[in-house]
């Protein structure tokens, strides 16, 4: 049966029983998504909001800082719904309190802040997913963030994506055709991020629920090229599929995602496609081709 109750991306395992807090819970997004995550099955145990100590949101206790929230609830994971300019401080608060999983949907985190955050998280041996991510999910069990329920059908396909919306569309079309997902991780569209495609290759290789892997990439950066190299280095034996957006984007123009910026020959569609195909990945040219191709292979 798909999927499993919990997965071991790092230690501790993350799953239905993992206590989760929401930083920024008193904000508009915090109130909405703490409710929707609970509805989906996530064990949300409280929230943090510096000025709102003692308040309740959706029946959940609100603390002034992560340290108090962790002491009171035993939280191991946090979904950070705070502003871009406040994100680094909020992440420092979470890591210092011993939070091991950080999911940061915030868009627009300054790149130099992300460099600092990346070192902070690595030194603490924690896992950071984001920024600019809709989050992660074990389909049918829990979600950290706001992946749409309609796109989350339990199944054998591991999914990683830089883009939120393109992955919703892909997941939705696949789900409609009966192809569901095991563990879905939105790595996010920023150039400097907590978790890159390549980082999760060993995880997906070992994860017993995952029979095949789909990555949804974008022009810019070298994440896809790195991922291709990691597949080879880890002798990844499951089928791998890819869809890459931005084939016709002009050089030097940022299209929404800070990471999707092509300079010269770096990060081009052609370079990514070539690297992935050389590593044995099936690269699709359109959403339709992807849905048909994956459904045919999974059958």
């Amino acid at each position, binding site marked *: 049966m798909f999927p499993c109750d919990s997965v071991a991306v790092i230690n501790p395992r993350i799953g239905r029983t993992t206590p989760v807090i929401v930083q920024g819970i008193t904000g508009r*997004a915090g109130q*909405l998504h703490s409710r*929707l995550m609970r509805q989906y099955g996530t064990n949300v145990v409280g929230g943090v909001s510096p000025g709102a100590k003692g308040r309740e949101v959706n029946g959940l206790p609100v603390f002034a800082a992560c340290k108090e929230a962790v002491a009171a609830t035993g939280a191991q994971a946090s979904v950070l719904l705070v502003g*871009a*300019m406040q994100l680094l401080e909020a992440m420092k608060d979470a890591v210092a309190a011993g939070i091991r999983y950080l999911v940061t949907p915030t868009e*627009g*985190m*300054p*790149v*130099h802040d992300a*460099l600092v955050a*990346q*070192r902070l998280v*690595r030194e603490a041996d924690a896992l950071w997913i984001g920024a600019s991510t*809709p989050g992660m999910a074990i389909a049918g069990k829990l979600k950290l963030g*706001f*992946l*749409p329920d*309609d796109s989350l059908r339990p199944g054998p396909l591991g999914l990683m994506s830089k*883009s*939120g*919306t*393109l*992955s*919703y*569309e892909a997941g*939705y079309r696949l789900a409609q055709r009966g192809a569901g997902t095991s563990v879905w991780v939105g790595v996010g*569209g920023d*150039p*400097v991020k907590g978790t890159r495609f390549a980082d999760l290759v060993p995880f997906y290789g070992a994860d017993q629920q995952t029979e095949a892997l789909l990555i*949804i990439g*974008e*022009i810019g*950066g*070298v*994440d896809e090229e*790195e991922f291709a190299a990691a597949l080879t280095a880890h002798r990844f034996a499951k089928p791998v599929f890819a*869809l890459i*957006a*931005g*084939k*016709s*984007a*002009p*050089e*030097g*123009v*940022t*299209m*929404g*995602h*800070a*990471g*999707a910026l092509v*300079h*010269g020959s770096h990060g081009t569609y052609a370079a990514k496609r070539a690297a992935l195909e050389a590593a044995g990945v099936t690269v699709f*040219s*359109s*959403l*339709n081709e992807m849905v048909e191709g994956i459904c045919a292979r999974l059958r």
Partner: protein
Amino acid sequence: MYLLEHDAKEILAARGIPVPAGRLIERDETIDRLALPPGPWVVKGQIAAGGRGKAGLIRKAATLREITDHVAAVLGATVKGRTVEAVRIEQQVTGAEEAYISLLLDAAAGGVRIILSGRGGVDVEALPAGSIRSDTAVAEAGALASCAERLAAAFDGAKGKALREAGGRLARTFLEHEALLIEINPLFVYPDGQWVAGDAKLITDDNALPRQDALGRLVEARAAAYPDVARKHEHGFDYVVVDPEGEIGLLTTGAGLSMMLIDELRAAGLKPYNFLDIRTGGLRGETRRLTQVLQWIGEGRNVKVLLVNIFAGITDLGEFSRLLVSALAAVPQLKAPVVARLVGNGLPAAREVLAEAGIALYTDLDEALAALRQHLKA
């Protein structure tokens, strides 16, 4: 933000990086001879892309007559889809050798890569590997300065001295302006070790713009030169005209999905006008953002149809459709018919609202594209 060379040099000069004396001349502007630096000169077309020399946008001039001719030839030229709206007339550097220095964000390493070479003036990738010194360092002032100094030690004499000094100053600038890339190619080095930045490529982080005052002021003062960044700075979302001749206006959300849609339209032989990540979550029940976008799309002289493509994970499509209908009514100058393809949360309500407004609604993208083609034929 990919700064035009002229703006990059102004920013660098303000941080103590020597640049040749130069002056910006925009289209329709007359050249004031007295304001020019002493000659001989170089006339440099300003576009935010590499390969300007090969494209004929960089020309040497020894006389005022030559300046006038070059300015006339370069201004208005279109290279890599960009039109030259301004030139920088700069004093030519003579009696110097060329070197190379760049600092760039290395996202994979989580730091900054510094690249030095004793040769300059050509594409760094074309340089022989043996002539390059490169390493990554943590994005902190001390670490970057000592990395640059260590790399510069491989070069002797004047070039070593110039690269060491330039490395230290550019490292500070890189951090202070939250740059993603600074490339000085060529770095002109005089026999006594004095140096000057011959060209300057500076790319900064748009996300940091709210706290980068000098860059924020630049974007506001020169909004016409940076329309995409200025728009995002002012409005908080992304809109880019990808083809001024485009026939299909796009009202879309999500960077990845919007890019993919443009790819698929182009692959099908269609001509999208714009990229848009409107961020439906940021509409907050108001039509302001939609009205603004519809006005911009209305400026496309060949736009024949508006394609709305929204995948609503959280957004309520019923509310979105009501906002869309009001916004369309508020922008009567946009006469293009609307094809809407909506999927997700609140679809039944959206269907009612759009039917009442006479807008065709599809849930299947291929069916929406077929309807789009009908409108393009008409």
